[in-house]
């Protein structure tokens, strides 16, 4: 079985974000990048399926972006993916979901992947579109927001997470694409021997120009902090003073402390 996992590299979300020169997205300087959290679950699930199927399965991990995404690809290989494809694109962060999906679909088309995993969304853009669009472009079965997964080689049994914690159970015929939600599994940490092994695995670089044939369909016209700041109070300072201030405020504003 041929398996593809699509991952994105995103900034650490605890960072401060400043608009870049174009004022349409964040400035990358000073940001530390890591694998999108949702995609870690996608990689883990693909690797588990590979372990279940043994050598009958082969897992390719793909990422679109500048040179730095090589780090995320190496991590995915250290987690157990067999090979990696880096679609070299310095402008990846500025592309809309339609373009990103088109690039992935033009790579995947004709390569006969039986199963494709993506995260349900990215932590920075959060559009939740790319996975489903890839499935549409390839004309394959798709379900989203998985918190449960089983596959026997012919069908996938997917558990989708719905609002309030209810789950919907869906059976998909392969080939299929699924998007992974937080909590689907417990992603492993790469071990040192596996990190070393990953260095010898194949990493194919393809320039984006070979795969991108379509312009954007939506435009970001501005990137800015929230206008409406909270009306609450903000306290900073040394801990013992803060404690006294907080006790005072809780006594005054809540019926909880007397």
């Amino acid at each position, binding site marked *: 079985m041929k398996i593809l996992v699509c991952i994105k590299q995103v900034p650490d*979300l*605890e960072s401060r*974000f400043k608009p870049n020169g174009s004022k349409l997205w*964040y400035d990358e300087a000073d940001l530390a990048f890591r694998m999108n959290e949702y995609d870690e679950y996608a990689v883990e699930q693909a690797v588990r399926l590979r372990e279940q199927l043994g050598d009958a399965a082969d897992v390719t991990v793909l990422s679109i972006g500048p040179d730095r995404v090589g780090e995320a690809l190496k991590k995915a290989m250290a987690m157990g993916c067999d090979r990696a494809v880096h679609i070299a694109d310095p402008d990846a962060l500025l592309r809309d979901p*339609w373009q990103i999906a088109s690039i992935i679909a033009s790579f995947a088309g004709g390569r006969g992947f039986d199963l494709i995993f993506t995260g349900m*969304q990215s932590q*920075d853009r959060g*559009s*939740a579109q790319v996975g489903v*669009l890839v499935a*549409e*472009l390839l004309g394959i*079965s*798709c*379900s*989203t*927001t998985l918190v449960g997964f089983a596959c026997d080689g012919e069908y996938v049994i997917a558990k*989708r*997470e*719905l*609002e*309030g*914690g*209810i*789950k*919907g*159970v*869906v*059976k*998909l015929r392969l080939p*299929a694409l699924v998007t992974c939600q937080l*909590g689907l599994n*417990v992603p492993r940490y790469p071990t040192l021997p596996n990190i070393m092994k990953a260095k010898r695995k194949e990493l194919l670089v393809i320039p984006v120009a070979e795969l991108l044939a379509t312009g954007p*369909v*939506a*435009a*970001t*016209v*501005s*990137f*800015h902090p*929230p206008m*409406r*700041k*909270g009306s*609450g*109070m*903000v*306290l900073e300072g040394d*801990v013992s003073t*803060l*404690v*006294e201030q*907080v*006790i005072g405020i809780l006594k005054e*504003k*809540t*019926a*909880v*402390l007397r």
Partner: protein
Amino acid sequence: MKALLVGEYREGNLLDTTYELFGFADQLGAETALLLVGSDSRLPAWVGTLYLADAAQYGEYNPELHTQLVLEAVARESADCVVFLHSSYGWDLAPRVAAGLKAAQVSEIIGIREEGFEVGCCNGKMRRTVKPATPSCVLTIQAGAFPQLQPGGSPTIIRMETAGSSSLEFMGYEPAEAKELNLTRAEVIVTAGRGIGKKENVPLIAALAKALGGELGASRPVVDAGWVPHGHQVGTTGQSVSPKLYVACGVSGAIQHLAGMKKSEFILAINKDKEAPIGEVADLLVVADLLQFVPALTARLAK
């Protein structure tokens, strides 16, 4: 501007969140028609054209057939935009409809601006304004961002049918895990977010909860990592709470968390990041390392 709204129906009921679509369309100044895969016995209270397909026939979740039904209604209505809730139903269906229409999709809209639609990004820390560049567009709106508008009256029904098979089969629902804890009655909830760093720090948060006579809450990553059982989770996929005092320790304030606690009477947030979006709902944000501040507060309360 003509908007085709796509309503939601689950376990035999029209979901109330459907009325948020009317609230959005009203702010957009759009004429509306509604498509629903539902039933005659649960019709929305509103006057207009309802494209109704039978959920008994097409399933409550069958995105391939539902996409066909939506596309058919868009054609009949000559709609300029198709609007979904950004929900497990909407974010699954919307990109399929966008692909079918070759239209731009704007996801999880929180506001309407002159230049385009406002959406959140970077985990709620920043905003983008996005403008579709295609003649028609697909929109999903953030749950709770627009008021429910229940116009009243009854719709004119146009029955919808579609042929075709599907590569997926919906097998049914699994109920939510039984809650071993009911947080909704707690007067005080002290929540552990991922900022607590590791499982070994859960007792620090639990001790503050005890000192305040409240319960321990948890954000989703803390539950997913197995640090705290699911019964303690607050948010869209956990419990919705409104205690007298909510203390968020190391919680960034993602929309799915806020949705479950923003109605609390008083919100105290402890975060080392002054810019964390939890500040938008907090009555009091203490910018501090929780590992120092929380034990100090607990000790002071014990005096």
